[in-house]
């Protein structure tokens, strides 16, 4: 017996798939499944996080609905995957954040934005919000900004690491040395290229059985956009503390050269992903997780957009409000990172590393059976 109905159904499907194996060449999930004869909770959580939700196995399956075998691997693995995010979340007290994730993240974000507006108005003169000085640090001293965001980033990192440790233990990753350099390097390559978000080579499936999906492109824009923005922020911090060069930076400075394309990537990428989400074949979609996924995209979109706006509106009276909104969104993004869709990247990376290790060892990880 399994801990949840979703895991129970996932086990049924993996038993069906393991006796068929036609999808073996489609992605990593099915070869990983074939190493196993039975499926404990940890095995299913691993397979669910290994799944990139490309949809090829649904379009290819002769037993998908309306067939009575009702084989819908993308949908049920998506359910198991999101259940696993909740299960791994640290500390446990915050697990309910996943129950109504869209609402929770919206509330945190609204509070954060309000906090910055109020903070600026209280610590300064309310008129500072609409001044045209073009200088962020008049509104919020750099040290305060760096201290606040440094603290929240450290907290997020801690919570993410603890969550990842829970995942690593649950899927038995250590039993096949999934943490080895070779496995991790393979996972880096597979994740960076989104190797398994390609429908087995022909492209993803989203709306129907035609492989016309562009989610890999949009995901690249979003992911690399995020990394560029993160890099821009880090470089800015080094400039400030290391060299005493204070913002604002020129258009051809490194923070701008990283930040502007990054922001554009985040905006375009998230719009593309959202559009794909709205047009996806409803049979493959777990509607109950719509809030979590939308909230994640919305946060990244808002981060990119407000960052770009901030640059455009720096010398106008809108600076104060724009800065409050941008800082509020980024603050909330970091604070809620361990409690939203953001975690998918970490667990997927871990699953890819485990897959690389299992493939090399030609045996499955040993998972502790549920009591």
């Amino acid at each position, binding site marked *: 017996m399994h801990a949840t109905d979703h895991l129970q159904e996932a086990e049924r499907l993996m038993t069906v798939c*393991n*006796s068929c194996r036609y999808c073996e060449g489609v992605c990593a999930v099915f070869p990983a499944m074939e190493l196993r004869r039975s499926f404990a909770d940890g095995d299913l959580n691993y397979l669910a996080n290994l799944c990139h939700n490309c949809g*090829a196995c649904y379009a290819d399956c002769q037993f998908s609905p309306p067939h009575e075998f009702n084989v819908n691997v993308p949908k049920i693995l998506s359910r198991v995957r999101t259940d696993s995010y909740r299960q791994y979340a640290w500390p446990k007290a915050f697990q309910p954040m996943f129950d109504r994730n869209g609402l929770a993240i919206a509330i945190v974000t609204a509070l954060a934005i309000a906090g910055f507006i109020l903070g600026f108005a209280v610590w300064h003169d309310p008129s500072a919000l609409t001044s045209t000085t073009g200088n962020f640090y008049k509104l919020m001293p750099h040290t305060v900004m760096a201290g606040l965001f440094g603290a929240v980033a450290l907290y997020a990192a801690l919570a993410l690491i603890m969550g990842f440790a829970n995942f690593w233990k649950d899927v038995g990753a250590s039993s096949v040395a999934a943490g080895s350099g070779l496995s991790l390097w393979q996972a880096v390559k597979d994740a960076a290229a989104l190797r398994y978000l390609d429908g087995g080579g022909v492209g993803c499936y989203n709306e129907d059985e035609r492989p016309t999906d562009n989610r890999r492109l949009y995901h690249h824009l979003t992911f690399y956009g995020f990394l560029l923005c993160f890099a821009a922020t880090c470089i800015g911090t080094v400039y400030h503390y290391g060299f005493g060069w204070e913002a604002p930076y020129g258009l051809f400075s490194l923070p701008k050269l990283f930040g502007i394309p990054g922001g554009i990537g985040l905006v375009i990428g998230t719009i593309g992903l959202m559009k794909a989400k709205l047009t996806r074949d409803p049979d493959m979609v777990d509607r109950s997780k719509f809030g979590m996924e939308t909230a994640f995209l919305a946060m990244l979109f808002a981060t990119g957009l407000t960052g770009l706006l901030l640059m455009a509106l720096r010398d106008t009276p809108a600076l104060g409000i724009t800065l409050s909104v941008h800082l509020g969104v980024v603050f909330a993004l970091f604070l809620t990172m361990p409690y939203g869709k953001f975690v998918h990247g970490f667990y997927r990376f871990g699953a890819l590393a485990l897959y690389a290790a299992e493939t090399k060892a030609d045996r499955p990880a040993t998972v502790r059976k549920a009591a």
Partner: protein
Amino acid sequence: MTVESIDTDVLVIGGGNAALCAAIAARRKGAKVLVVEGAPKFYRGGNTRHTRNMRCAHDTATDTLTGPYTEEEFWDDLLRVTEGNTDEALARHMITKSKEMLTWIAEQGVRFQPSLGGTLSLGRTNSFFLGGGRAMLNALYLTAEKLGIDVLYDAPVTSLDIDNGTFRSAIARVNGKDTKITARSLVAAAGGFEANIDWLKEGWGECAENFLIRGTPYNRGDVLKMLLGSGVEAIGDPTQCHAVAIDARAPKYDGGIITRLDCVVFGIVVNRNAERFYDEGEDFWPKRYAIWGRLVAAQPDQIAYIVFDSKSLKKFMPSLFPPIEAQSIAELAQKLDLPAEKLEATVSGFNDAVQPGTFDHTVFDDCRTKGLAIEKTHWATKLEDPPYYAYPVRPGITFTYLGTRVDKDARMQMASGGGAENMFSAGEIMAGNVLGKGYAAGVGMTIGSVFGKIAGEGAAQHACN
């Protein structure tokens, strides 16, 4: 009643591999093509949706094939499985043409991969479809759509107007309305009649009621019946079908590959009376796979039970349903509703007859019984390590052999002599020309693709001249 009407150059009846290859080939020759598929969209493609590979001759190894498979070797294999029930000229023609099929099919969007886990024995000879048969169909339909081929689903053909070997028109039910389709040429690629229990009963009697059908309920053979009724010459044994033993708990239709069981070799097989009835160690897959359906069909109630013990549980491919498990033979008999004392006697009699030997299921080993009325000639080991397991099995019908006779151009031949004017057929509906008996993995798809392409090109040529 209003009758809608459609006119086209080439009408293709059917929606599987052969039909799509014919439609695409005809379209590429410049003909206007209409495909009418009797099944709804999800179930399109007949048996193709359950296939996974095709067998083509090739002279060298490729990315996905481990070594060469010459025309001569292909012919030897075909001769062996059909025991000579084949048209040599036609079969050799198909084998020669199969070589270029690997490239042609790939050009139509179908992707290949190395042989699947558990099918190593086919890695040299058979090309596996990435994602399986439905993925292959999706690719072909996508290509057909891009080429501007019209497809109607849920459109069973109810009558054919054939005048002395010349096709004039067909009536199909489209959206509940009778629609008259006129065309210059016809390609019939509508499969066999394996899902038509009443027709199966003509060859098998009432016991066909207990058969399970491995494909969709739409393989009813209506078009085949109409063609034979219109003077097309028949080929193949009308009473025969390809029957394998599959899990008795499978649904009546469309259980596909996941209900197959290939563990006969690891234990004994008993009937409802708890008696063995055939040498379980006679031969390897696929031969033993192909005979057990027929053997079970001859048993009371068309049911049998494969019984084995714990040491064999993980030696074969898993299947959909778990085996029935018990700590003793008596308990197993009770769960299977078999006479317990009889099953115990059968098992102990078997165990006593097992001779010492070295078990190896990959060769004809020396593990055998001695002194039984029905010996197990290889792979015989004692059933003595509980828990004990059993799978109930029934005959699972894959395809039928009766079809339309064709020549090398896939042109239907008339019973009165000579070829039809404008009628071609491809796929299972004419497989009996090449495969009069038995089966070799992937041959059905070779027949469909090779003759589908030939039929489509011939039909287009006739239509456009």
